[in-house]
Each structure stands twice: as structure tokens, then as C-alpha cells.
């Protein structure tokens, strides 16, 4: 069953981009990148039991790493490879003190880290300051340059595939079992010999690496970065996607990101219809995130994927009992 799901997803990721019209391709790229970041958030929240409200800061670190390196003449491939590494290193350095914190303390700490980063970026002239970093070249390997959106669509698909694959293997590993144990009871896990602190830091770094890699692609795709591209709301969006899809599931982040991005897209189209006031898209956007988050947390606490699983299993059982 799991294999089948992955196969279908892979097929979709390969087959879908060429069929999409140009204007939807941009949405597709941003959607896949968001899904890749959300895989990390879901891993962190679902398996390590920690809320991060600053995941966009690692996205920003990855983007700025790739962007700055490329602007200064480093081959783009090297820049893209450096993005997750630098993001993970930043996560280890930040996580060592911060991951002592739990629950709402950690949520506020990660939020604070992002606010500090944004404020520092806005003052850093070497990174373009508040105006932003301009003139990032397009992504290229050897002499081959990615010019159109289709190429970036496949590049971001690759990023998502890597994130999913790594996440699946981590979850299935010994470390993954240890983490799940620690999320239920830290004391019991520690007493059974799980290196809780180390594992937790590793997952934090891993989720940052996913975000950094996605951020690197984002930098090459847009060619322009500014502190304003990484608002606190972006971090909250990742949490919403993870929660809506279902924490601690592998398919959850993809489902959550897809549902939310499509919904936002539909509402955007609706909001920009003639006759609608010009604030309509923003209002609808905020309202969707807010309502989805609240409704999901209160009524579907495990998210969409487990809920759908339950419904499907329920109907299967029913079919069997009738027979």
C-alpha cells in the first residue's frame, strides 16, 4: 500500500508539470518547495514533538546562502549544495541551547530567532539589506542552464523526493523509533537508553536542511531575495500545512501543502474577480489559514491523511462484514 502511494506520487510529480499551463507552473514550483519544507516541520512536530514557529528562517538561510554564493560567482550547483549544509549547521548551533526548551517556550524561541534573523538581514548591506539581494543568476550545471519554469518544476520535485525519501528512512530507522518513544514520554525513553537530546538536535538539523535546500531552489527560481519574502506568517503556514496534512505521517505534508495551496489559489482567483474589493485576496488568504488551522486542530487533531485512512479502513471493514 505504501509503495503504491509513493509510486502514484512519483508518477504525478513527473507527469504533471508539462501538462500545466505556464501560469500554474509557478504555483506548482512553490507548492513542491513548501511541501519539502513541511516534510521537515512534520518530522519535527510529529516525531520529535516540538513546535517550530521559525522554520522560514532556515528557508531564508538556505536561500541567502545559495543566492550570495551565486552572486559572487560560485557555480550554482555548489551554491545549491551549500544551502542545506549551512542551514543544518545554523540549526545545530541554534538548537544546542534552544532545544532545552519545550512547548510554548520553544515556539516563542524559534519565533524570536526568525525575527532576529529578519532584522539582521534588513541591516546587512552585504546581503542587500532591506532592499534585497538582486541579480542571482539562473541555476545551471556545467554549461546547461535552467531557463524555463518547467526545469524548476522538476528541480523542486527532486528536492521534495529527496526530503520524502530521507524522512521515510529516518522514521523507519532505530533513531526514528527512539524519537517516537521520546515524543510520548521523554523520561521513559531516556531511561531506556535513547539519546533524546542528540536525536532531537539531529531532527532539528535535518528539518533545517530540507528547508535550506528548498530555499536554495527558491533563490535560483526567483532570482531575487528580500527579508520581506520570509515573513513570520510563512513559518506559520508551514505549521498549518503540517497540521492539516497530519503530523507524523509521510504523505501528510504533501497532502497538506497541496490542499492549502490549491484552496488559496482558488480563493485568490475568486478574490481578484472584477467587482471584488482589492483587499479581498489578502483577507481570504488569512481567513483560510486561520480557519483551517483552528478547525483541524480541534476536530481533526491527527490531520487529513490519518482521518482519510480511517474512513477508508472503516468502509473496507464494512464491506468485509457484509460479505
Amino acid at each position, binding site marked *: 500500500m505504501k509503495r503504491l502511494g509513493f509510486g502514484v506520487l512519483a508518477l504525478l510529480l513527473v507527469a504533471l508539470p508539462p501538462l500545466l499551463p505556464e501560469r500554474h507552473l509557478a504555483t506548482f514550483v512553490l507548492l513542491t518547495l513548501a511541501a519539502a519544507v513541511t516534510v521537515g516541520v512534520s518530522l519535527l512536530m510529529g516525531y520529535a514533538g516540538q513546535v517550530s514557529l521559525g522554520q522560514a528562517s532556515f528557508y531564508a538561510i538556505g536561500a541567502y546562502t545559495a543566492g550570495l554564493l551565486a552572486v559572487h560567482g560560485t557555480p550554482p550547483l555548489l551554491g545549491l549544495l551549500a544551502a542545506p549544509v549551512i542551514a543544518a549547521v545554523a540549526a545545530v548551533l541554534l538548537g544546542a541551547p534552544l532545544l532545552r526548551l519545550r512547548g*510554548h*517556550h520553544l515556539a516563542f*524561541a524559534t519565533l*524570536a530567532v526568525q*525575527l532576529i534573523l529578519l*532584522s539582521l538581514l534588513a541591516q546587512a548591506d552585504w546581503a542587500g539589506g532591506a532592499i534585497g539581494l538582486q541579480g542571482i543568476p539562473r541555476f545551471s550545471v556545467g554549461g546547461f542552464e535552467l531557463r524555463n519554469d518547467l526545469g524548476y518544476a522538476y528541480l523542486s520535485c527532486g528536492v521534495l523526493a529527496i526530503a520524502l525519501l530521507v524522512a521515510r528512512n529516518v522514521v523507519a530507522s532505530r533513531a526514528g523509533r527512539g524519537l517516537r518513544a521520546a515524543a510520548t*514520554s521523554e523520561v521513559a525513553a531516556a531511561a531506556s537508553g535513547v539519546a533524546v537530546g542528540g536525536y532531537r538536535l539531529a531532527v532539528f538539523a535535518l528539518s533545517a536542511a530540507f528547508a535550506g535546500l528548498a530555499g536554495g531552489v527558491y533563490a535560483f527560481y526567483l532570482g531575487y531575495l528580500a527579508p520581506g519574502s520570509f515573513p513570520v506568517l510563512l513559518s506559520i503556514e508551514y505549521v498549518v500545512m503540517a497540521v492539516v496534512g497530519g503530523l507524523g505521517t509521510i504523505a501528510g505534508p504533501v497532502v497538506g501543502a497541496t490542499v492549502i495551496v490549491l484552496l488559496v489559489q482558488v480563493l485568490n482567483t475568486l478574490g481578484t474577480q472584477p467587482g471584488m474589493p482589492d*483587499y479581498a485576496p489578502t483577507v481570504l488568504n488569512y481567513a483560510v489559514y*486561520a480557519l483551517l*488551522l483552528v478547525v483541524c486542530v480541534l476536530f481533526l487533531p491527527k490531520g487529513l491523511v490519518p482521518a482519510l485512512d480511517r474512513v477508508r479502513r472503516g468502509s473496507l471493514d464494512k464491506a468485509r462484514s457484509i460479505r
Partner: protein
Amino acid sequence: MSDLLGYIVTGLGIGAGFALVASGLVAIYRVTRVVNFAQGAFAVLAAMLTASLLGSGVPHGVAELGGVALGAITGLLVGVVAIGRPGTSPGTSLIVTLGLGVLAYAIEILIWGDQPRSYPGVPGVAEVGGARLQAHYLLIVAVTGPVFAVMAWFFARTDLGKALSACASNRYAAQVVGIDVRRMGLLAFAIGGALGGLAGVLTTPVQQVTFDSDVALIVNGFAAAVLGGLTRPGVALAGGLLLGVAQTLVAGYGGGAYQVEVALVLMLTVMIVQAARTGPVAETAR
């Protein structure tokens, strides 16, 4: 020297705003164990309503009271959604209030647009020991002091306040003696809303308010409240004032660029030190 005094009084004014937000957080956290992320939204909504009321000719005083009342009502509504469903864990409630804070953005833009708003406060310039500063800062300090005094009296001397404190110290025991813990939680949310609203109403004349000012307010408020472990209003007041003064001093002497970082780094340090003291493994008693 007169510069220094000016900075300190201005800082106390700004810090009083943080302290009010912080005390709202503390009021809610003590009783419900929920960190209310929508606390900043109360301030923004109250300030926006006050600006509208003043704009349509309602006199000063009445308009401000209207803003605070809206804060209290919003607080109650947030409380109903966040803790109204039995069995909602504090962690879940935190995420719910986060969602409600974002929902407040939608409502604020819908009604008031996304432009910054302000309204005139106490006009003119005051002189304190040779330092010149906006007179409105003195009003903020003058209102905040009595508000904290009334709160201290309320929590220690009235039946309702004692019931709230009882829930704060032991929920189970409070239930046993017949206190409706859920209703007390909702009351705490309403009080928190009113305090948040008061913060917004008081500080808007000196600091413009936009729909997303709530992030700065909630972070500063949390930073102030966390000093007292989120449970001691007195420490939250001291923390807020300290933060305000520290920020104005940094802005005044070090160039304005780094004043955001002061609050944030202070908050991170305090939390990490507290965590180190209590030990790395904090298993909550169930």
C-alpha cells in the same frame, strides 16, 4: 544627564505597554495553562476600534473604553474557541490561539484596511527634570500603575479573584471546592483581553498600529512575562518596564537599529537559563 532621564521615562511608558500585554498573558496562563498567542491581536483590535470611534466624533474616554470593552469581548470569544471544548490540551489551545491571531488579521483588514492607524493622545511636550518628552508617555505610566494595583487587590481580596487564584494554584482542588474551572478560564481570557486592549489603546498615540503590530507586542509581552515564569504579574510588570527602558536606551545611545534584538536576546537568555535550572527533562505531572 537630562537625555538619560528622558530616555528612562519614555522607556517606562513603552514598557508599561509591554507590561499590560504581559499581565494579560499571565492572567490567562495562570488559570488555564494556555499561552495565548492572540494576545497582541486584542491590542490591535482595541486600538483600531478606538481610532474609528474617535474619528466618528465619540469623545475621548468613551472611545478608549469602547476599545477596552472590545478587547474583553474578543478575549472571551478566543477563550470559548480555545478552551471551550472539553479535553483540549494547552498545547492544542496554543495552536488554536495562533490560528485565531491570524484570523484577526483577516477581520482587521476587512474592516479597517492595511494602512497604519493612530489618533492623538495627550497633546504637547512635558518636561521631567529638564528632559523633554511627549506628555502622553506620562499618561501611560499614570494609568498602568493603578491598573496593576487594582489587579493585585482583585486577585487577593475579592471572592472572584480568589477563585481565579485558586484555579491557578491547583485546578483539581479548586474543582473539589465547587469552583467552575472552565468558567474561571473564560473569565481569565476576558480579563486578558481587556488588559491587551488597554495596552493597545494606551500606546497607539505614540506608536502607530497596523494589523500586524501584534507580533511585536506578543513577543515583547511574552519576553516580559517569561521573566516571572508566566505566573507572576508583579515580575511581568518589572520585566515589561525593564524591557522598555532597555530598548529606549539602546535606541537612544546605540542607534535605533538593534532595539528589536534587545528584547529577543534577553528573552532567549532568560528562557535558556530557566531551562538549565529546572533541568533538561521537564515531565509535567499528570
